[in-house]
């Protein structure tokens, strides 16, 4: 992502041009707002924010306060204790899970995005026999939920001796049919055929055309794909559940569940406060990633509208 610069992104053509910005301007011109719409948006906002607020508030509570105090307000503030306990519990296994998750996201989601860009570009800009068949397969693959493939994948991987290794999580994450479809669309809309012709006329090879001309134009679409493959990999639960047995390779999702189920076993130690604080720590990197990458995303959209 470091090759992206604001300038290049600004030059890019967005996938969804024109409509967003003018619509916003228009509403500023009209002082009367729809009360109904405001209330509805407010409700949706509340609906999506309340769980976050709950998590934030309850991460500051001790286990006893979790049960005794009102759920949507603070009790004794022990967030720092909780964070410290979360990071050090069981010899700091949480940190290990965090690093595992990062590995799966960087290699898995990063790889998925890269492959989607390559494939999407090729499908959009080259014609070759069987393209329609590829299209049908991709669309079909979008419709198959990953969960349905997890068990067959497990059986296959166990024969290849890949289960219980990080590869078992990374390799299936590398494939994102929906990402490919998005990049395909994005490449078809964002890269003007004339530009490629110009590049070819100037003697650029296919590789140079791709990396120096097309890739910058694809930045907004790429960020979109990167964002949602990242979220998918970060939140991946079922696949690692089936593939991994060694807690040393768990991602955060499995680790938190293991902590949570400790409470439901004879002699197990209930650590609800650590589960909640751990959940908060787990979503923080995603929020940061969204805020950071949104900049590129939005500038891409805006650039599109200017061009239009």
């Amino acid at each position, binding site marked *: 992502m470091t090759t992206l610069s604001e300038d290049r992104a600004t030059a890019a053509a967005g996938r969804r041009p024109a409509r967003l910005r003018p619509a916003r301007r228009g509403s500023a011109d009209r002082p009367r707002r729809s009360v109904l719409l405001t209330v509805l948006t407010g409700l949706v906002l509340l609906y999506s924010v309340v769980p976050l607020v709950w998590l934030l508030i309850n991460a500051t509570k001790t286990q006893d306060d979790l049960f005794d105090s009102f759920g949507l307000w603070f009790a004794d503030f022990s967030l720092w204790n909780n964070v410290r306990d979360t990071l050090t519990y069981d010899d700091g296994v949480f940190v290990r899970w965090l690093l595992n998750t990062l590995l799966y996201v960087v290699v898995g989601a990063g790889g998925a995005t890269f492959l989607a860009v390559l494939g999407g570009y090729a499908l959009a800009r080259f014609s070759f026999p069987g393209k329609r068949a590829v299209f049908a397969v991709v669309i079909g693959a979008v419709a198959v939920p990953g969960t349905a493939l997890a068990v067959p994948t497990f059986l296959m991987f166990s024969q290849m001796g890949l*289960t219980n290794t990080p590869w078992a999580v990374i390799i299936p994450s590398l494939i994102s049919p929906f990402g490919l479809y998005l990049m395909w669309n994005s490449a078809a809309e964002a890269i003007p055929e004339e530009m490629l012709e110009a590049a070819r006329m100037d003697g650029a090879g296919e590789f140079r055309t791709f990396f120096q001309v097309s890739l910058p134009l694809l930045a907004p679409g790429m960020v979109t794909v990167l964002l949602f493959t990242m979220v998918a990999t970060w939140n991946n639960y079922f696949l690692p559940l089936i593939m991994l047995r060694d807690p040393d390779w768990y991602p955060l999702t499995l680790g938190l569940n293991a902590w949570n189920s400790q409470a439901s076993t004879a002699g197990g130690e209930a650590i609800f406060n650590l589960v909640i604080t751990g959940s908060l720590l787990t979503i923080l990197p995603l929020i940061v990633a969204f805020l950071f990458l949104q900049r590129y995303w939005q500038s891409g959209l805006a650039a599109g509208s200017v061009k239009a």
Partner: protein
Amino acid sequence: MSISKRAALLRATGLAAVLALGLTACGGDSGSGGSADAGSASDVESALEEGGELTVWAWEPTLEDVVTGFEAEHPNVDVDLVNAGTGNDQYTALQNAIKAGSGVPDVAQVEYYALPQFALSESFADLTSLGADSLDGTFTPGPWSSVQSGDGIYGLPMDSGPMALFYNKAVFDAHGIAVPTTWDEYIEAARALHAADPNLYIANDTGDAGFTTSMIWQAGGQPFQVDGTDVTVDLADEGSTTFAQAWNTLISEGLLAPVSSWSDEWYQGLGNDTIASLAIGAWMPANLESGVAAGAGKWAVAPLPQWKAGESASSENGGSALAVPEASEQKALAYAFLEYANVGDGVQTRIDGGAFPATTADLESQEFLDKEFPYFGGQQVNQVLAESAANVVEGWSYLPYQVYANSVFNDTAGQAYTGATDLPSGLADWQAAIVEYGDEQGFSVTG
């Protein structure tokens, strides 16, 4: 955790179970040899001297100290203690590993109800020749019979869960209600408590297979009879019916809190005086101390209420054994660890950590019996619990596919708790599901 995820998990467990049974049906082509070559008692000694690395799958928290002690005593042995999941999660992983033929641990923790499934498919090694045959009388009868299947001994009991009535004494006293000694009195107490305060329930229950089987066990029922692959199921025998009718009264009168055991609401209810008692295994003190700190000084332990006044029948609820998977290549060394943890010095380590042992010597030791529990207001609760361990009704057995059976309990018998049917017919539905599945799996099931 969403229902669909849990359902998916259960399906995965079921699938794994099918695979494991399928493996047995194929015969001895699993490559790891037959079950006869587990080794002898002298092999255990030499294995300890030679040393090596052991992988242990267990979720029991006190085992960490046991491993430390074991490694200190046998510096040549390196034990890798792995928490591969709790209960069903771990069984799924274990079945998958056994099926895949790689990554199988040398020692695995398995609850008593799940052990027959692994024993029958010979996924676990028979420990008889390694020295388990000399352990008759070492363990209390309930757990000891639970680790045996046919002529084999497929694990050593790690802990036990003789049932008792844990009750919130403060709540019972506040309402002037005596501790029930029979289930009839218990129902009366349930009515009185709920009438005095509509938020107060004598217990919670939304359908719990483990609890139900333990209660039937205490009532003298023997719904599951197993002889090799011949299985007889009768969830309408006298004991089962006694329990089902009494419990149906509690359900139909709305006297049970609609809270699932082990949920966070459950822990909350136990702490805020809205769930007043638990009929549960003897391992509960450690859970109360860590999960229900607010109940300290309020709770006490009484013998399990009886079906006939004056009796002292009891049953086991939960508890687990350590077993050695057949695929382990270090069975002798693994057995040495089992012996240390479940018969040797490890037992005291675990008692100190709050576990409830299965060894008669420890259950009868004065130090154990006299221990005062500050959480229970200084009560010597081990006296009640050890008494219960000695009075466990004999003759109980679980199904060779109890993990699956328990997983469909809520779809069948559990319907009684939502008012869709009554408990006796719910149990009949459960029986039908058990028979159908068993037949599909190649058992010959009567019922």
